[in-house]
């Protein structure tokens, strides 16, 4: 059994954090932050926060030299306060992803009993078995392997964390369920905890923006804090262009977003459908594009499945690789230079003439194929509204 305080240092998102009189997100952390910065006058806090944001902005998966000290707790709290104040979805997502991935890595190093303790602290309904219990067998290549695990998790808790992971392997129907509990491997259980941690960073969004304004002003009176905040913002401005395409429009099961695809994408999809081979660059472009729309992996694989040299494993790998790296689809300028722009061939009005931006009160040319969809969907939603009126 590990000491709970020790656990909290490693995993500050645990509910037990409260027991150690660290701030609650509801309290005004002004005094608390003042005290904190005076406790670490040499910029250790700033350094750690920057390092974290930089890694998140660069899409780095893992932070080397991760330390489980007191500062780790402060890092967690400050990150959450910052995200709350920044109130910026893409940034929150990046930080949440990075933080939860690091957590996953750390948790994998823990003993079974510790993972169990963590689950208990999270109030997850878990059954812990020592020695492990059987739930089936796996035979491959004449090798018989007993499936066993130390953990079972109540299906309701399981679903709350797994239902949004959009992963066939995690679908309840494909899992071992009996007496209200899902048999779960430690690795998968940790993946669920990762999801819990990721959401912890995104929860801020529910709060009303108004109350945060005063809160924000107050905190920015602290010199050290303001420095962090400003620095992150300017870094963000630089990165923003790339990020903006990564959200808002996304694939929804059952909805037909493909009718709003730009000519360049339509053309490639058509080729694929006809079973023609795609060039390397076409493949990359379509993968990045569909990834950006959050298309499920199997739908993307489907696109490639008709091609003569289709290789499922390879395709899966490439899609995931692109996803992990967070690649952003090419801009119209790049596509034009690659001869992949199909504006002329399709005689497409939006692509050829651009659109009128109300915000800027001027005509704008189309800069990115993802804008194309946004524009179409925006116009579509207007049309629907009109019909309803």
């Amino acid at each position, binding site marked *: 059994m590990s000491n709970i305080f020790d656990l909290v240092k490693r995993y500050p998102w645990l509910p037990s954090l409260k027991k150690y009189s660290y701030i609650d997100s509801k309290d005004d952390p002004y005094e608390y932050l003042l005290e904190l910065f005076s406790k670490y006058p040499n910029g250790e806090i700033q350094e750690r926060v920057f390092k974290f944001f930089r890694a998140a902005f660069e899409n780095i998966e893992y932070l080397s030299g991760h330390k489980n000290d007191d500062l780790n707790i402060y890092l967690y709290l400050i990150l959450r306060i910052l995200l709350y104040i920044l109130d910026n979805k893409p940034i929150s997502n990046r930080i949440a992803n990075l933080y939860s991935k690091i957590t996953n890595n750390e948790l994998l190093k823990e003993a079974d009993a510790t993972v169990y303790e963590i689950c208990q602290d999270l109030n997850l*309904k878990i059954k812990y078995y020592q020695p492990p219990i059987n*739930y*089936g*067998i*796996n*035979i*491959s*290549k004449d090798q*018989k392997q007993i*499936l066993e695990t130390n953990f079972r998790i*109540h*299906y*309701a*808790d399981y*679903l*709350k964390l*797994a*239902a*949004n992971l959009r992963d*066939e*392997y995690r*679908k*309840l*129907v*494909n*899992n*071992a*369920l*009996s*007496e*209200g*509990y899902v*048999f779960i491997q430690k690795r998968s259980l940790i993946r669920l905890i990762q999801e819990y941690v990721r959401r912890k960073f995104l929860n801020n969004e529910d709060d009303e923006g108004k109350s945060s304004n005063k809160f924000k002003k107050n905190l920015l009176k602290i010199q050290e804090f303001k420095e962090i905040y400003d620095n992150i913002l300017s870094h963000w401005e630089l990165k923003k262009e790339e990020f903006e395409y990564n959200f808002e429009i996304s694939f929804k099961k059952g909805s037909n977003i493909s009718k709003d695809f730009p000519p360049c994408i339509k053309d490639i999809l058509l080729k694929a459908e006809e079973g023609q081979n795609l060039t390397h660059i076409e493949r990359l472009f379509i993968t990045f594009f569909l990834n950006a729309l959050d298309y499920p992996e199997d739908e993307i694989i489907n696109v490639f499945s008709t091609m003569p040299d289709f290789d499922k494993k390879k395709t899966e790998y490439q899609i995931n690789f692109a996803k992990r790296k967070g690649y952003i689809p090419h801009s119209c300028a790049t596509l034009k230079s690659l001869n992949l722009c199909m504006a002329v061939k399709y005689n497409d009005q939006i692509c050829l003439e651009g659109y009128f931006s109300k915000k800027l009160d001027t005509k704008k040319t189309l800069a990115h194929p993802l804008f194309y969809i946004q524009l179409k969907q925006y116009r579509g939603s207007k049309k629907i509204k009109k019909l309803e009126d």
Partner: protein
Amino acid sequence: MSEKNYLKRVFQAYYKEKREEIPIITKLEKREFGFIPWDKEIMNRHICFKFTEDLKQYLINESPKHVYSSGASYLQPDNLDMDKKGYQGCDLIIDIDVDHFYTPCKDVHDTWYCKECGKTGKGIVKKCTKCNSIKTKSLSWICEDCLKIAKNEVFKLINNFLVPDFGIKDKEIKIAFSGHRGYHLKIENKKIRTLLSEERREIADYLTGENISFEILGLRQDRSNILGLLKENIGWSQKIIKKIEEILTTYTNQEIELLLLRYGLNRNIVKSFINSKRDFQQIISNSKQNIWNLEGFGIKTWEKFLFGIVDDIGAEIDGPVTIDIHRLIRYPGSLHGKTGFKTQEINHDELDDFNPLNENNERLDPIVFKSKENIHKLQIIEHDVPETRIKGKKYGPYKKGDIIEVPHHIAVFLLCREVAKLS
């Protein structure tokens, strides 16, 4: 007096008389109510009752055609804006209704007629078999066999899924005969109440076997072998193998043939399957191996076979009802405006003997308007009205224009079905 006014008065008298017997659901004051009146087919929803007496008085005053309440509870059930209702959780609702799945007897008792050319026929069609017009009107009828099948699905659901897999306790399950062609289950459990739609979809998929992946369960090609599923694997694998074992050991060859043809396998493959029946039985009962090499069976064929099996194992539930956390369901003890029958709550241990169309236990009898004598004269206004068996007696079939004399419960039923008028 119009039929609708007449029925409203009949319902009214019932609610008045049975005021004290109307069941009260849990969290009544936090539920949203909805009613469909007799004069228009529009649901009045966003209604709430602070006290049970208010609900009872409403039923007596308005005597609506249909009465519904939410599976969800809200801080403000009467707020018109869904987002401002203050959602607090929802019971798990499962709907089993023969309207949503095939039963063989429908070919006998469900009828249709074409508004274009006047052709009539039996069963369910998408368009007229004579003139191809889609302007057909279908009449689905109540039937003991259909209701038996629905009841079986309820047992399947409880005994094969809810209790053993989900660990749900008997006392958490509320069963009700809908008053027409099916049953509702309501599961009241603290943890389940917190589940969101997406999470409920996972439960619905588990109960039906939808979106199952045989590849994940172990079906795959390994060089020249096909590897199949294993009985040892808890969950759907086990269910599937047990079902296959049952088929192999208890079905005749002829039954197997019919089954596999229904699954969409071709005759040669069916033959090959029956020929290797014994071998296959050996294979699946042996935990040491899972090589499913049967002549003519590739991965695709196995998938087809397994999808058929899964379909037979899964419960016939109406998925969207389970997933929708704001859905309203028929209120227990209320009268169904399409039949005049009562939505009847039943305990799990009473279900086996329960026969909604001929129930001997007065307390459980959904048919509340009864008379021994033929006290009503009606005229049939629908083209073909199928035979109805209620309380062990046959009524009909009737043709348009028939003048009939029937007891009270049959009159109410036929009027509710809008196939007859007062004569």
